[in-house]
């Protein structure tokens, strides 16, 4: 098992090479690079081998995700989105839907998951995208915003209202009525292909609905988001590892005022806190992945907790790393400059800090009041 994740991490290392800075500055990862990683199963590595995936455990996929996040958070975001799309198909889809679409997602097709709308971000209950019956088929109308991988995607898992409940529907991006509009100059994860998606009278066959039936919105959204939270949390571990390495290397190689930076106590404090953050975030991620692999229901809250901790510590840690590197790290494209911008976005997605805090507080109150 360990060999398979480290082989996958090696494929990522080769694909990224020294190009993360260029991808960040141009806002693009070459499509052929993404497709090649996709055909090797790296982008959704938890999908079982019977569907063409690598069949990694959550724990091994987490280490792969952290290794990717340490090199390039844009590519790591692609892993998160493709993995979340694949997991949603795995979890909600019928046997036939799994066979068809998971083969595509491990065969070079790229996919994103579309939740957010102009009026429904943190509050998904305000979602207004409509999936309606239309003769023997379906019709989709709505608008989704800030969809990661949207600009690269062949397929989108779109969440919307269906019947008196909700559903997730598979929308090919080349279907008539689908228009993809790239988000110009995102703050972070600049090459992750964020896009707004317009869905105007998109007609699809009936079997585009995952599982073929209306399901509770909260349940299906939480199903997809829980995968996303675990993945983002591991990605933040990667950000912390990169920041710790950059800060420690710089502090031990640069002299200031006749002494190495690493001899200054205030600099050493940054290194100590980065170490604590990286280790503690790793332990929380390992815990949620073990819950996932053992299928214990604790995984749902553990995912919120790990994501919240890892994202807030990554944002603090990246800020500290920029502080230690100072002018050496203060230009676009530098690993700590990217980390600083990328980590801030991690405090917003898959449940903002505030939404995570509300869920954690609900949990505490339910347990103790």
């Amino acid at each position, binding site marked *: 098992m360990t060999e398979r994740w480290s082989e996958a991490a090696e494929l990522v290392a080769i694909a990224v090479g020294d190009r993360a800075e260029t991808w960040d500055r141009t806002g693009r990862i070459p499509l052929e690079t993404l497709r090649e990683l996709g055909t090797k199963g790296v982008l959704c590595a938890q999908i079982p081998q019977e569907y063409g995936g690598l069949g990694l455990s959550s724990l091994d996929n987490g280490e792969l995700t952290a290794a990717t996040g340490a090199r390039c958070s844009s590519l790591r975001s692609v892993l998160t989105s493709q993995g979340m799309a694949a997991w949603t198909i*795995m979890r909600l889809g019928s046997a036939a*839907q799994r066979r068809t679409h998971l083969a595509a997602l491990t065969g070079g097709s790229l996919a994103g998951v579309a939740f957010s709308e102009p009026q429904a971000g943190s509050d998904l209950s305000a979602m207004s995208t409509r999936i309606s019956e239309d003769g023997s088929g379906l019709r989709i109308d709505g608008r989704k915003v800030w969809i990661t991988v949207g600009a690269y995607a062949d397929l989108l898992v779109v969440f919307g209202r269906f019947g008196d409940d909700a559903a997730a529907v598979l929308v090919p991006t080349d279907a008539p009525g689908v228009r993809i509009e790239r988000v110009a100059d995102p703050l972070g994860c600049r090459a992750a292909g964020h896009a707004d998606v317009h869905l105007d009278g998109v007609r699809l066959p009936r079997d585009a609905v995952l*599982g073929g039936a209306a399901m*509770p*919105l*909260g349940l299906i959204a939480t199903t997809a988001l829980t995968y996303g939270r675990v993945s983002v949390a591991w990605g933040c571990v990667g950000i912390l590892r990169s920041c710790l390495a950059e800060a420690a290397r710089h502090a031990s190689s640069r002299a200031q005022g006749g002494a190495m930076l690493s001899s200054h106590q205030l600099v050493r404090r940054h290194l100590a806190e980065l170490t604590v953050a990286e280790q503690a975030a790793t332990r929380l991620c390992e815990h949620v992945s073990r819950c996932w692999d053992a299928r214990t229901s604790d995984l749902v809250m553990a995912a919120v907790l790990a994501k919240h901790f890892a994202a807030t510590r990554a944002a603090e840690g990246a800020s500290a790393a920029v502080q230690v590197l100072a002018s050496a790290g203060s230009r676009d494209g530098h690993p700590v400059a990217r980390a600083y911008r990328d980590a801030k976005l991690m405090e917003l997605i898959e449940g903002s800090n505030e939404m995570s805090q509300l869920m954690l507080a609900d949990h505490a109150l339910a347990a103790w009041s």
Partner: protein
Amino acid sequence: MSSSTTNQHILSPGSICGKLTAFLERQTKRDIEPDLDIFAAGLVSSLFALELVVHIESTFDVAIGGPDLRLDNFRTVDRMTELVLRLRGESDD
């Protein structure tokens, strides 16, 4: 996800119902009658709905496929018991 369904031992409807009730009472801290609509009673948050699905799957060694994730299958302890019995029966063939 689950090719490891080894349902050798038989679980009676009563014991499935009892285990589900115990889990729900522990999580919600109130008495749960087998025919109480836990969704209508406001006892199920989005997070808890997924916890419930994962708990049922691991406790009774079943895989709840997409088409079965309908609200109707989870409304009451009775409905969930029926779902578990059906899924355990299906995986025997």
